[in-house]
């Protein structure tokens, strides 16, 4: 039976609605969950009113920033993953495949090993991410590379190099420092940047990606074909690479290398019916934000007062959802 042509307008409304609903639910669940029991009514009230009580400070200074950080980091990773998958035209693309997180991790772990003050870690991570980003692009960009295979290979090899260095640092580290390092590697939102900064970065990244979306729809069929239709392939490649890497750098430097979200939420959005990038980018961003927010809620409450690394929980939550969707979809 021929598939009925989808009505793009209705699909868009449905999917954006779904994404927004998921995002709002996740934000609410996260705000309502915590070791102090605060009623839903109070939570909603205290978001807007400052009454100086302990509950007010818990909401305004602990739960709200953490929730918004988780959302922004999840959204940024998911957006970066979507961009990477078009850039590499490879469904296995994720924010980390080109080594950005590896560079950040090595810099941070080296900093920890040397006993540098904690304040240095964010700038160090950022510097590591940038160094890796520039190195990969400089090494890969000289040649005619319509499918970006050279970029992918260079990135993967660089990532392998970084992960060897991570192993080296871990094996040299004194046992007392190991838990902190491992926690950072698995992703941890407790020391995230200010949520305002993260949300601003995510908003800018999403706006820039949306502006490129019509070109991304072409690039999904190959950069050479896109070039034949009037896209400047070198420029688009540079824009995509920079955007995806910057978003990844922001996410990784604030929360460590949280896996899974960036790889899987773009597929999740596609499985739900968003293939056009004008729709895919915002939907994937919303779903990624929602997924990480939920995972982080679980991470900070399941074994409270101790915390689990959030990266572990994103995968634990995401894997069954994704497998279920994949089973329903006969082809991908």
């Amino acid at each position, binding site marked *: 039976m*021929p598939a009925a042509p*989808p009505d793009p307008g209705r699909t868009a409304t449905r999917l954006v609605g779904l994404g927004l609903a998921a995002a709002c639910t996740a934000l609410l669940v996260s705000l309502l969950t915590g070791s102090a029991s605060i009623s839903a009514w109070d939570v909603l009230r205290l978001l807007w009113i400052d009454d100086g009580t302990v509950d007010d400070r818990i909401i305004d200074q602990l739960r709200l920033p953490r929730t918004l950080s988780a959302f922004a980091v999840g959204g940024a990773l998911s957006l970066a993953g979507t961009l990477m998958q078009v850039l590499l035209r490879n469904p296995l693309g994720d924010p980390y495949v080109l080594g950005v997180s590896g560079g950040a991790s090595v810099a941070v772990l080296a900093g920890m090993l040397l006993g540098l003050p904690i304040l240095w870690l964010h700038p160090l991570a950022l510097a590591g991410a940038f160094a890796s980003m520039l190195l990969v692009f400089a090494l890969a960009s000289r040649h005619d590379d319509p499918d970006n295979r050279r970029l992918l290979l260079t990135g993967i090899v660089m990532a392998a190099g970084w992960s060897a260095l991570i192993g080296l640092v871990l094996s040299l580290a004194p046992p007392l420092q190991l838990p902190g390092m491992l926690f950072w590697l698995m992703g941890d939102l407790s020391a995230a940047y200010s949520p305002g900064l993260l949300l601003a970065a995510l908003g800018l990244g999403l706006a820039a990606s949306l*502006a490129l979306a*019509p070109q991304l*729809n072409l690039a999904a*069929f190959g950069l050479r074909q896109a*070039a034949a239709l*009037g896209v400047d392939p070198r420029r688009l490649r540079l824009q995509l690479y920079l955007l995806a890497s910057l978003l990844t750098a922001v996410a990784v430097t604030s929360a460590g290398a949280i896996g899974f979200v960036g790889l899987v939420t773009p597929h999740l959005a596609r499985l739900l019916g968003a*293939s056009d990038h004008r729709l895919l980018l915002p939907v994937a961003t919303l779903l990624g934000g929602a997924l990480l927010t939920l995972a982080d809620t679980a991470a900070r409450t399941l074994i409270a007062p101790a915390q689990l690394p959030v990266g572990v929980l994103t995968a634990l939550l995401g894997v069954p959802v994704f497998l279920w969707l994949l089973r329903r979809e006969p082809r991908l």
Partner: protein
Amino acid sequence: MTPLLRAEALSLRHEDRGLLEALNLSLMPGQCWVVLGPNGAGKSTLLETLAGLRAPNEGEVHLHGRPLGDFRPRERARQIGLLLQQDGTGLHNSVLDLALTGSYPRKRHWWDTPEEIFAAHRALEQTGLGERAGQTTDTLSGGELRRAQIARLLVQDPTVALLDEPLANLDIAQQARIAHLLKDRFSGPDRVLMMVLHDLDLALTLASHCLLLDGSGAWLAGPRQEIASERHLTRLFGQPVRREASGHLVIDWETTS
């Protein structure tokens, strides 16, 4: 009359190998060119160069009398359409998504206008894929995918259409149908069509002009009647070509060289 597209002293090389030396070629409105030559003769490289995706090693390409390099990419894509020999299937995109990408060169809005969507549906119907619009491209057969890519070219609606083996993977009936569609749409009074084909019979039926490339630099271009002779084609293909009593040129498949 200015040619729509003109190659001037165009030379192409692949690494150290010279593919084509000093090609002069004028594509005039209404013509239908067929490019013939053995594998690796530089046919695809030539099409990509004429479409502005690749700079020539020497010489220049002019579009409407202006050097191709002076055009901005999108401006160029409104005039020149290129169907690549190898083309991808996208990332879980629908057949309609694929056809819609053809509207990019003329796109004025971020969203798709009803006219663009209508044009994409119509092009899919013309290529016999009207029923497939909602399917993802990876569910199509090779021939259907080819036709979807041709639908994209119909949406793009260029004045110069360059097609690299457009009929590969199509069954006989579809070959005939698409060949006529292409000729009707792209060799009208203000348009020109150039195709790389391997089927000699089909090539000589469709062509008004032929370009023969032997892959070592030599070339021969002109009206079909002058160029498509037993002698030229036999030398080009390395396989005997003879003229039958009906006047048709056919390949002698019995002999092996």
